[in-house]
């Protein structure tokens, strides 16, 4: 058993592009769930429309990449408005089901044959981010030590990803210190109280949905750039559940909660994957019990178990404040 390899695999994922994508997604969710108390379970829908913006503009219509990114973000704004206008008046549990349904509808439409001329259906779109990699100032080569190294392209996307995470976190920090942020938190604590003070609760909720949705879309775009590919089925509801796990692990309602949560989450997930693969490889786990292709499923099962334990025993996460997380369906 090579523990240094396990550690290296975990550390690589913890600073890698998946961690930045989920940090961005969770920062968006944090605006929704952590600060405004919106139970948005269709977050992956924002990532989907964001990621498809540049993919469609570049791969299908040959447009410039920056326009695609703008269109992706605009799609997220439109989605937030279309989703929020009818549903934000609903109670939290209804909102959760409606948003997850909306995200599934989006995924089904994007993957349908009907939308094939635009989205290329289940096959998705590839090779659209060349312009992004052409911008890279990093000379070709390998950077880092041993297992913990990135190619020049990998390093570029990771650096951009973390820069975006830092920017988003800074934005959330500034906004939540402002009077606007205080109103958002008061809506989370007691909607009726905020309303009785003359605040337009619906408007604030909608603004929160738009802001968080755009940050989520940025996460989707980073993921699409990193893979140079988008397929509708990789934007399934489980992505949202992972983002919630990341958020709750780090601590909802904290600016750095999602960032720390993502780093720890991916360290644990990738480390466990690596550990299991080694354990199977060395025969520590009998092959009859678990085979290498099933490691992916174990990962999901463990995330589920982790989410349950976290929510039951430490709903405020590792760094959250219990007083900020006195949640109840209202």
């Amino acid at each position, binding site marked *: 058993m090579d523990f240094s390899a396990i550690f290296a695999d975990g550390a690589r994922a913890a600073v890698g592009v998946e961690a930045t994508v989920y940090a961005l997604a969770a920062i968006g969710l944090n605006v929704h769930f952590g600060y405004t108390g919106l139970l948005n379970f269709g977050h992956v829908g924002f990532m989907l429309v964001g990621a498809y913006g540049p993919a469609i503009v570049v791969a299908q219509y040959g447009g410039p990449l920056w326009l695609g990114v703008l269109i992706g973000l605009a799609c997220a704004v439109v989605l937030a408005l279309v989703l929020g206008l009818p549903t934000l008046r609903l109670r939290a549990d209804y909102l959760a089901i409606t948003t997850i349904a909306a995200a599934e509808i989006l995924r089904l439409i994007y993957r349908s044959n009907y939308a094939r001329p635009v989205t290329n259906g289940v096959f998705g779109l590839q090779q659209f981010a060349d312009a992004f990699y052409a911008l890279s100032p990093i000379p070709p080569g390998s950077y880092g030590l041993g297992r913990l190294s990135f190619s020049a392209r990998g390093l570029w996307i990771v650096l951009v990803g973390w820069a975006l995470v830092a920017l988003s976190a800074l934005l959330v920090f500034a906004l939540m210190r402002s009077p606007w942020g205080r109103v958002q938190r008061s809506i989370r604590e007691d909607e009726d109280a905020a309303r009785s003070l003359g605040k337009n609760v619906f408007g604030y909720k909608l603004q929160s949905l738009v802001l968080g949705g755009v940050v989520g879309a940025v996460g989707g775009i980073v993921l699409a750039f990193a893979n140079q590919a988008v397929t509708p089925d990789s934007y399934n509801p489980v992505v949202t559940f992972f983002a919630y796990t990341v958020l709750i692990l780090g601590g909802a309602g904290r600016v750095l909660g999602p960032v720390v949560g993502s780093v720890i989450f991916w360290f644990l997930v990738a480390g466990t994957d690596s550990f299991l693969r080694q354990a199977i490889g060395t025969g520590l786990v009998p092959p009859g019990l678990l085979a290498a292709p099933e490691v992916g499923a174990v990962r999901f099962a463990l995330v589920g178990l982790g*989410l349950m334990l976290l929510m039951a025993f430490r709903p405020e996460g590792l760094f959250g404040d219990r007083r900020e997380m006195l949640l109840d369906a209202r």
Partner: protein
Amino acid sequence: MRRLLKALLAGLFAVSLLLGGSALAQELAETLRGTLRDAAGEPVEGVAVTVARDGSQVGRDISDGQGVWEVALPGPGDYTVTLDEETLPEGVGLRNPDGATLDAVTVRPGQQRTVIFPLGEGGSSAPRVLRQLAQLAVEGVKLGVIIAITAIGLSLVFGTTRLINFAHGELVTLGATFAFLFNASAAGPRLQLIPAAALSVALGGVVGAGLDRGLWRPLRTRGTGLIQMFIISIGLSLLLRHLILILFGSRARPYADYTLQQALQLGPVALTPRDLVVIVLSFVVLGGVGLLLQRTRVGKAMRAVADNRDLAESSGIDVERVVLTVWILGGALAALGGVFFGLVEVITWDMGFNLLLLMFAGVILGGLGTAFGAMVGSLLVGLVAQLSTAYFPVELRNAWALAVLIVVLLLRPQGILGQPQRIG
């Protein structure tokens, strides 16, 4: 040394494939062929099929006693295949009225391509549309009753404990896979499906009881918030679903019994006996649950707790006991729905999760927390999903069902049978 051997073998294999492939291509000329069968599956004789390329006729054949026609081709390329509708016998017509000519049928080198002309009963198009709608309506009812059976538990659990149980879909999958284990798995006892299903339903009830006693009740007594419990149920769903994936595998599998059946023609609708039995049994079960809720003591207690938990408790109802009964009933019904769904479609590790959103749609459509609402709403969801395929692509069927959910939430958020209350 071993590596070298492997590489050599791989090379040899590749070369033999190439050689074999080209030899085959030379041996076999390209043909287009097909078998014409009518709606009852009987071969249709004496129908002329013409094959043309770039407007000029390449060949023509008349279907023989087995309904088979075959036209040899001059080479690979794109062909136009036309069925002469004049030569079709009385009472037989193309199922797709515009399908007599198939354009751009691509034939690869050496390919013997099969062309299908789906035939049905002839006649004008109006009754055909009605017949198609009738068929889809029956399919919709079939899907709807299965959703209804599974959704009752979801709705009752919400009614009595206010928990949105995201892991309810996994109870459905568990039911289907338990029955598979008893019925068709190599490791199981290979029981006939009916006793296997009965066992699985009983086990479903046990799982429901276990979840309530082992997980949800301790959480309730600890005072865990409802949103926390909702997220816990999502974690549970992820955990159970992927445990099932590890144990059951990712392949879709059928039961050992009642798989291949000849469809019965009931008026305008074709239905296999299996599907018919599933529909009838589902209605019987739904009726039974309705009677249970309306007439029995425990059913009344369930409705009372769902209506107002505190009032029910103060009038002497043992609420925890009722909740346990609800979980047993919900688990057993979910397992039954899973067996039915696995029977009419196929068993997969994520079938319950795929049904879950439809269940939610049905439950909310009918009014959260009421069992009868869940039944009506689920039937509607099934009908909408299937009937949408008459005009829209099949792959968007679930999208339509979910769209109905959103529309209902906008117009009548309390659902069709729900009591108006503040939900915003």
